[in-house]
């Protein structure tokens, strides 16, 4: 799985190359094909016949960079749904029950915790006083997993998820921290996790991209398209955003006034002429382009089909808490995530923005955190349930988390909030071999740092790849004289304690 040359191997060219012994025969076959398909086919081929057309043997084989690839070791999971809570959700108001924090509310945190630490907003509104959570905490399920009253639906799936309370990252500003979580580096322009995984495993889906991104919340995530970029990897592997308004994929719709018949004609004519050029030049890139155009055409029908949830039952919609199936929401995105995985899409990432609860007028713990929690709690739980009911959870890893967590110390602006915190925060994992009903790692009395089993972002990456059958040290891409990899050069370990 080292850096593969992206030109076609010679054998694919032999099939259609004019200079080979079979030259004359091939050429005439192609020419016949050329006229049959074009002269006769034009105008008569409709969308409905697409499937049968594709079933016929095609004389041209192109290299598909997304074709499924073998794993390093047997995989426990084949797909990933990553629920990214952009902004940094407060683990201390959602997962971490800390009675001492409540007891010492308003008192300064002992200096031993903060000595030598750096925080965002150090100069301005950072305060050293502890802030108790206003939430009520309770244990749930057979596992007795602690959750706050903001996650009543999540309470119903605790026995199917692993809660890791000791996640740790290196960077405390939003955009760099998001890059770090997604790419293993705080720098712009490194390949994202979804790109790495699609590069490593290929895609099982031939009419949708291998890596799809869905967004909800009042704005896009900080860092933008870089978060799902392919960096040094070919753009084939970059995430494709599916949009809730307008075309689900940029430029998906046929231009206004163009019939699907005319669109098909363009594809057929381009294919025929490209095929002709392929025979003249012998350049396998043309074969790849022919295939790409066919997939583009298939996407024109498969993506709208994907987005059309009218076939979903009332029970399913209710499970996710979807009121209006047309309305864009995190809940709808969760449902779409399931539909994508059903169709073989390798990596689905959902971004939900506005989890940055510093305590300002529009971002406080009293009002806005509960609103965000309400937006996501039911759909997240529904997604895990739904995948489970359909037998998809076994092979699908569901990840929940943000780019970092929030401080035990309060920030008092117009109302109360918490600052960015990188030493310990909570994420949860379900499916794909992750244990159910486990809480892993232990933090100190204030939830400031790990006292047991810290799990660094790199460890999360290594573990995730491991479950997908990839050795994180072997998934590499050579660029600038270096073997790039998701986990970088610093130590990373597979957290065997939370997976099987």
């Amino acid at each position, binding site marked *: 799985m*080292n850096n593969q*040359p*992206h030109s076609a191997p*010679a054998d694919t*060219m032999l099939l259609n*190359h004019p200079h*080979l012994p079979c030259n004359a025969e091939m050429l005439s076959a192609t020419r016949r094909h050329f*006229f049959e398909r*074009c*002269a006769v086919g*034009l105008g008569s081929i409709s969308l409905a016949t697409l499937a049968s057309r594709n079933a016929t043997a095609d004389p041209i084989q192109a290299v598909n960079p997304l074709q499924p690839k073998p794993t390093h070791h047997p995989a426990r999971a084949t797909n990933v749904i990553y629920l990214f809570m952009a902004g940094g959700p407060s683990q201390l108001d959602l997962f971490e029950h800390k009675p001492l924090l409540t007891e010492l509310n308003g008192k300064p945190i002992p200096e031993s915790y903060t000595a030598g630490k*750096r925080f965002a907003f*150090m100069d301005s509104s950072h305060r050293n006083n502890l802030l108790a959570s206003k939430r009520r905490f309770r244990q749930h399920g057979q596992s007795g997993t602690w959750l706050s009253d903001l996650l009543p639906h999540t309470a119903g799936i605790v026995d199917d998820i692993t809660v890791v309370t000791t996640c740790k990252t290196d960077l405390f*500003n939003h*955009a760099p921290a998001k890059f770090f979580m997604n790419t293993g580096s705080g*720098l*712009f*322009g490194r390949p994202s996790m979804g790109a790495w995984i699609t590069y490593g495993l290929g895609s099982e889906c031939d009419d949708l991209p291998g890596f799809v991104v869905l967004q909800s919340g009042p*704005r*896009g*995530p*900080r*860092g*933008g*398209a*870089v978060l799902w*970029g392919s960096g040094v990897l*070919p*753009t*084939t592997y970059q995430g494709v*955003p599916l949009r809730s308004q307008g075309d689900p*994929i*940029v*430029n*998906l*719709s046929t*231009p206004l006034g163009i019939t699907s018949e*005319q669109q098909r*004609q363009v594809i057929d*004519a*381009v294919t025929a*002429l*490209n095929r*002709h*050029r392929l025979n*003249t*030049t*012998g*350049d396998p*890139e*043309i074969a790849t*382009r022919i295939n*790409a*155009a066919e997939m583009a055409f298939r996407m*024109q029908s498969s993506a709208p089909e994907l987005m059309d949830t009218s076939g979903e039952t009332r029970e399913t919609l209710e499970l996710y808490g979807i009121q209006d199936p047309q309305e864009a929401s995190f809940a709808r995105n969760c449902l779409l995530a399931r539909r994508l995985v059903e169709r073989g899409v390798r990596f689905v990432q959902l971004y939900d923005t506005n989890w940055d609860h510093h305590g300002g007028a529009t971002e406080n713990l009293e009002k806005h955190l509960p609103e965000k929690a309400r937006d996501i709690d039911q759909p997240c739980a529904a997604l895990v349930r739904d995948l489970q009911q359909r037998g998809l959870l076994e092979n699908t890893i569901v990840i929940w988390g943000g780019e970092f967590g929030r401080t035990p110390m309060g920030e008092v602006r117009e109302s109360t909030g918490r600052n960015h915190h990188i030493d310990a925060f909570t994420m949860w994992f379900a499916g794909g071999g992750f244990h159910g009903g486990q809480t892993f790692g232990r933090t100190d009395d204030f939830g400031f740092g790990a006292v047991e089993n810290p799990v660094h972002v790199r460890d999360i990456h290594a573990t995730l790849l491991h479950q997908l059958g990839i050795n994180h*040290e072997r998934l590499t891409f*050579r660029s*600038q*004289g*270096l073997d790039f990899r998701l986990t970088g050069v610093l130590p990373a370990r597979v957290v065997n304690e939370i997976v099987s």
Partner: protein
Amino acid sequence: MKAKQLIFSLLLLTASLPAAEPVSFNRDVRPILSENCFACHGFDPKHREAGLRLDTFDGATANRDGVRGIVPGNPAESAIWERIRSTDPDTVMPPPKSHRNPLTPAQQEILRRWIEEGATYEPHWSFLPPKRNASISPDPQLAQSSPIDIAIERRAKQQGLALSPPAPPETLIRRISLDLTGLPPTVEEVEAFTAASLTDPDGACRELVDRLLLSPHYGERWGRWWLDQARYADSNGYSIDAPRQIWKYRDWVVSALNADMPFDQFTIEQLAGDLLPNATEGQKVATGFHRNTQINQEGGIDREQFRIDSVFDRVGTTGTVWLGLTVGCAQCHDHKFDPIQQREYYQLFAFLNDQDEPTLKVFDPGVNVTELTREFRELEGRLAAWMEQHAAALADWEATLTAETRKSLSAAINNALDVPIEKRGFAQKRTLFAGSIGGVGPFRELNDRYNELDVILNQGTTTLVLQERSTPRTTTVFVNGDFTRPAETVTPGTPSALHPLHKTSARPNRLDLARWIVSPQNPLTARVIVNRVWQQYFGRGIVETENDFGSQGTLPTHPELLDWLAIEFIERGWSLKELHRLILNSRTYRQSSVITKDHIEKDPDNYLLCRQRRLRLDAEIVRDVALAASGLLSNKLGGPPVYPPVPPGSLNVGQVRRVWAESTGQDRYRRGLYTFIYRASPPPSLTVFDAPEGFSSCTRRIRSNTPLQALTLLNDVAFFEFASALEKIIRSQGLEVAFRRCTSRNPQPEELELLRQLDPLTAARTLLNLDETVTRE
């Protein structure tokens, strides 16, 4: 890549290394050691295992408790020979935990012979100065043969291959036009060229190359090549990604290339133009090269952290762009493969740490800034004096004001009135005089002129530049590259493994660094640049790893050719246009790109260059070709970036919703070079064709081939607009003309027959979607 490299070196070996020929350290041995051994037994002492280093003769032959890694002349007594052949997982090298495969028998054999022959080390090839190799000098008898062709043909012949025949004239003119200007030839140009080629194909090509090198579009095409490396874009990056003004730098690059500014000067002005004596405005604008770093405007950040990040970027970019070295690797530790210590990294850092980052006001040509500034200052003095003299009159006027009369005065005047007299600034005083007793007469005259000059001098276009600080910052090593962990203090300096730095003062500055980079003693820069130019023409450099000429990079496929080009480049006054001429006038460049059975069998990846290569056009040029073919292209050069149509909503991917005021008139149809690029949300039709976003230096674009490209060509609003224009051409001038505008060749009868069955719009869309239209063949 590893496999390819191996195949290639084996291929060379079997052909050119008979058993009697000695093993070459750089060609045969170093790649094996670098790939398999240096990570743990190399330059970086912190990660050196068992105290053994294999990157130097002394290290490899040192006696460590009776064990010697290499005993020259005696493989049997050399520890490495035993270890690489071991089958015991505990002793075999490289060890299984490195995930490297055991050495192949062929690799083992090379090492054995090398040890037997005395284990001679050589400095890494790229650190040795380029030298002329007589074997590729042209035979005076054959007027037309160029060292390029001699070098390529000789290697090809060893593999039983020969150069392909020349491409047909219509392919050639399209190739040369796209390569030099990024625009296709017109139908008339193709006809004239084809006719001229009938009698004198070589002359026709030479004339074409000469003509196109004088085209202003040459600078646009090659400007983009350089802007990729300069990581140019029009916004600040990170999460806020606000727009910035730095297009004057882009225009500077384009005109410098059009003027064929010698590359050494081109380098010096960009790295240190502000430090040149009597620096011109252009020389200051040029320092925008290193202002193309991102600026984090997020709340709550430590500005120093991100300033240092931008200096890291500058050090890394300088290393990549000019030295072809992965200098950035030494940010956190000594380089594992190349001789760059972490300390030396911070000495380079020190050169780039002593600047302020101001915004420079840029004037239209024709504005005499010195004269106007003098006049402005003088006016300032005269106005101050006048106001001083008439202070009492103003006070009298003020005394007449009532709350009622003040209502009729402007807000600016009222604001100024509210300021106590002794605290009023120059501007406030002017406002008051202009609105009262100075409204007519000499004050009015002076003041109007003052305002006029203020607009010319102090408002309008700006650009980002570097400016040396009067007091340098203290630079230290940062432990693990972490700016919160400063260690020893360092002063500016260059890596000791390279040529010496010529200092002009006790503390060398950026200008010294720039001159060091383009010193003729520098073995790297000329090679790196000619290689990157070559890469544009053949899709791959003579050194495939165009940004790594260090020991982890690939070896040159034609080392003597690379050296010849580098030497010629310097001797021809660092002229890029001369370099283009050398390459474009070679038979190697002009070959057909058709792939034959022989090629597939003997050189499927075209390392031997026995054919040209079909290359999908760069993103901007995909647009430019469609614009040109549909007759919409605006030929306007330079100026502020423009906002052509983009798919609705496609820019709202980041934190900030973007305003995209769609351009009208000819700005709608400008070349892709001029499209405004937001780093965090660049226009989809460019990124989908692999245009870089300007996050970091891009020295080679990837060429992907994806369904999203097909969707763009089919459905994008801009491309549909082009298709509609091409439809009109089909209706007025016929299909054949439209076909030729897209591909530069005549359609074949069956192609035309097929297109005739389509309605004109469908035919136009088909033509713009052809692989051939977006490919240079």
